[in-house]
């Protein structure tokens, strides 16, 4: 065996791509988990079609999973990929554009047979016609090699074919020098009751590794050392899982049961799935008949003293807006999670976007202010959900917690928080009869008492009609209405006293301030960092709280010559900033169902710097 060269890399981006039936999401997830355990920093981008299992070989059926990992800090899933694993011609066609010049292609030759080429719209085979000359191309007959590895097992050809992703995974493990053990363990667990499949997958995984090890095709292996992350215990986590856990943690710290009323919708369903696993945490999950029943059941549960939560995506929020207004009026805690996706309407259900901010802020009839918080990274979904719950309970209000498809499905290493260090956020249920009025308010927070059914002597009635101040009786008086409308607004405004001031990353004043919110955090951070490394006067302001905003936002904005607001929409936060602070902010807008590439933001900043 010839000795293979080992090359050290700071960071790599790999994209696995194949048919939606090819198991690319699984392959990517396995590679991610193993990479996480090795201590790399990482960020992932699953990218799958709206069809469940589109006909094999078609362009629209291609499913991809990108992982960016390194020994340095990783903030995005990578603007372009260094390695493209293409299980068929369509996968190559769809993804070649994202491969860097000189990048590596690992292609499954069987996926480039005549039928596949035709389906992908190739007139000649790119693996052989020289069109890929500028890349490092490895054509491997993965299908055949998989079949060979399983030759003596007498499996159906369907089963054989289903294993081939493990061959690709094995190869990549070998190439990037990752241990196979975690995946071996996983296979053993997952297929414990299906010994044949277990055996097949294990064999094929190892065959892939051995293929790298023994053949002479690959001349180099790569080494990506662990990242210098803050010390502590880590795990890899997706945004949706982190969100679910954040809600559970909040319920525990509030000493309340968690009640989720939800209706399945991509990309939010996984939160429902995750939460429904934890019945031993007293989590109650209710798959309702629709979104309206999802939220109203959660509100009913809140009335009873639970932490009521509803999870959905944009079209689902549309249906919930009437009930959100009700929650504003009855002043009960409620957390509304929107895992945003491409819109409008059904739009691009499996793609990401952040175009529901204005809906969260303003999408209700009447003056119905609702606090809005947005998560910045997959792991941050935990904190955002916890914080949303804290505010909901303390201020007796519905709270929007915004995430998006990119955050929800993406993952990153997460420094596991010390649960015992999280604050106690348990509410004080009212029990004292003396002086009880359902709309008598706390002087500081302006929140009303939470008196739950079952408490003797506090029988009272709430509802969606305007309430009289203090008594909570139905009241139509003009002055009372005006007063109550302003009181509800003031209550939400006061939350600004209870959240941290905004922190600028970079200098506190200068040429350009890039303001972002939500899932664009990583890309903006990368772009700003690069500019600062280039010596430019560029800073980054990330807004976690969109309503109310931290008290110092105006101050910060006024200290920069230019304010630029990159958003995955046509300009939503920017509207709020301009209206509130009258700053001539400019937008950078992309609405492609994809996250920003850092380079896109970097370029925009360059433009602004040049124009000044």
């Amino acid at each position, binding site marked *: 065996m010839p000795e293979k060269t080992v090359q050290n890399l700071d960071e790599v981006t790999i994209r696995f791509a194949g048919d939606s039936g090819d198991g690319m999401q699984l392959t990517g997830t396995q590679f991610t988990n193993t990479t996480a355990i090795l201590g790399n920093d990482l960020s992932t981008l699953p990218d799958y079609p709206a069809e469940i299992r589109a006909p094999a070989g078609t362009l629209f059926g291609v499913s991809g999973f990108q992982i960016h990992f390194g020994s340095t800090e990783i903030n995005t899933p990578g603007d372009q990929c260094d390695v493209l694993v293409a299980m068929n011609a369509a996968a190559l066609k769809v993804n070649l554009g994202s491969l860097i010049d000189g990048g590596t292609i690992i292609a499954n030759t069987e996926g480039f047979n005549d039928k596949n080429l035709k389906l992908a719209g190739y007139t000649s085979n790119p693996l052989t016609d020289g069109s890929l000359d500028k890349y490092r191309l490895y054509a491997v007959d993965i299908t055949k090699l998989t079949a060979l590895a399983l030759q003596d097992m007498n499996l159906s050809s369907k089963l054989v074919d289903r294993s081939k992703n493990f061959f690709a995974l094995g190869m990549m493990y070998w190439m990037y020098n990752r241990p196979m053990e975690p995946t071996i363990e996983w296979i053993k667990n997952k297929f414990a009751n299906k010994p044949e499949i277990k055996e097949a997958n294990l064999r094929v995984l190892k065959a892939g590794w051995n293929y790298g090890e023994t053949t002479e095709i690959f001349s180099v292996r790569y080494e990506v050392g662990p990242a210098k992350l803050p010390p502590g215990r880590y795990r890899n986590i997706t945004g949706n899982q982190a969100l679910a856990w954040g809600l559970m943690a909040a319920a525990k710290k509030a000493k309340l049961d968690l009640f989720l009323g939800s209706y399945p919708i991509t990309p939010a369903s996984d939160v429902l799935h995750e939460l429904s696993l934890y019945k031993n945490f007293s989590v109650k999950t209710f798959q309702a008949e629709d979104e309206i029943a999802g939220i109203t059941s959660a509100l009913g549960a809140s009335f009873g003293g639970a932490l009521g939560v509803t999870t959905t995506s944009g079209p689902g929020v549309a249906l919930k807006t009437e009930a959100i207004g009700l929650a504003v009026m009855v002043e009960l805690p409620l957390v509304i999670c929107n895992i945003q996706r491409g819109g409008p309407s059904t739009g691009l259900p499996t793609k990401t976007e952040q175009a529901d901010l204005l809906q969260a802020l303003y999408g209700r009839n009447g003056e119905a202010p609702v606090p809005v918080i947005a998560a910045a990274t997959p792991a941050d979904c935990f904190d955002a959900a916890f914080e949303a719950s804290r505010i909901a309970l303390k201020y007796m209000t519905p709270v929007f917690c915004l995430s998006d498809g990119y955050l929800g499905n993406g993952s990153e290493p997460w420094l596991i928080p010390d649960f015992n260090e999280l604050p106690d956020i348990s509410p004080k249920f009212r029990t004292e009869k003396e002086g009880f009025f359902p709309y008598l308010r706390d002087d500081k927070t302006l929140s009303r008492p939470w008196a739950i059914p*079952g408490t003797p002597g506090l029988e009272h009635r709430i509802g969606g009609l305007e309430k009289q101040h203090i008594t909570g009786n139905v009241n139509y008086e003009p002055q009372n209405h005006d007063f109550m409308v302003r009181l509800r607004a003031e209550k939400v405004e006061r939350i600004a006293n209870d959240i941290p001031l905004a922190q600028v990353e970079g200098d506190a004043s200068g040429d350009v301030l890039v303001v972002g919110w939500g899932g664009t955090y990583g890309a903006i951070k990368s772009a700003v960092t690069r500019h600062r490394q280039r010596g430019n006067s560029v800073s980054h302001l990330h807004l976690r709280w969109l309503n109310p905003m931290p008290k110092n936002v105006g101050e910060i904005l006024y200290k920069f010559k230019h304010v630029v607001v990159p958003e995955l929409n046509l300009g939503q936060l920017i509207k709020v900033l301009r209206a509130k602070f009258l700053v001539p902010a400019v937008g950078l807008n992309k609405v492609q169902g994809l996250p920003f590439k850092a380079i896109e933001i970097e370029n925009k900043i360059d433009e602004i710097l040049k124009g000044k």
Partner: protein
Amino acid sequence: MSTLVEEILKAAPPASDQKMTAKDFQSDQDVRWCPGCGDYSILAQTQRVMPDVGIPRHQMVFISGIGCSSRFPYYMNTYGFHGIHGRATAIASGLKMARPDLSVWVVTGDGDGLSIGGNHMIHILRRNLDINILLFNNQIYGLTKGQYSPTSEKGKITKSTPYGSLDYPFNPAALALGSSATFVARTLDRDPKHMQYTIKRAAEHKGTSFVEIYQNCNVFNDGAFFQFTEKDTKDDSVVFLEHGKPLVFGKEKDKGIRLNGFSPEVVSLKDGKWSVNDLLVHNEKDTTLSFILADMTYKPGIPRPVGIFLAIDRPVYEEEMARQIAFAKEKRGEGDMVKLLNSGDTWVVQ
């Protein structure tokens, strides 16, 4: 239930031995229905029955949607939630799942519960949460001043249908049965005794109880049910369903209902041709029979069936949910966030 909620419940003083009275269930709010509205009687009967139900006020919750009928919770001295239009059943479902210890009541109208709220209605019925639903059917939209409703008779002239409505009305009992309800009943605002009995039975039923109450809206649909409630016509127009008893009706109890093939027909018990033994005998436990009886509702020439169509047992949703939770705790132990956070593949960075 969560520690905090449990604390509250534990701290509550023991229920007093003194029996409550109807008055205990009257809130301090002015009742704002039109004078003469049938809702007053329903309120009175409900308040009268509640002491017998035997659950203390503070453990009762009345939940409603929007409509004249939906003002009901304000007048009950219990916990109450006046929701949004059509969603009372969904709000109630969430509350009941969170708090199975509470006695949960839904008050709704023919518009609220069957028009905009029809979907939540059919779903709560199949799920069978232990919730009692009182549907005030006045065959009109009262609060919005008189449009036709899903139970209005076809051809009805209202503000929105000056040429007469075109829709065939729902038969609420049949709809409830078609939704696999476990308790379905019909009663009348002007028959206090029957209403009290029916409400009591609904309260006793473990599972969702669906009670349709014919209610007179004297402003926008006066007399809609007079045939079934007024002295001179009611005996011949209504047949009361009583478990185990043959379907006899008429002022002199001289008429009955028998099945001809599958078609119910009215027979006279006087002319010697038919006797009580030929009649349909009611059985609350028979789902098939319940459909046959509900289907009689709009049949011309057949008296209107009133009473309990069906009362069967089926597992109760929130109890099964609680059981799953208990099972999970038994199997996996009380959930531990620290363990969960550190479960699976983790690694340490020094």
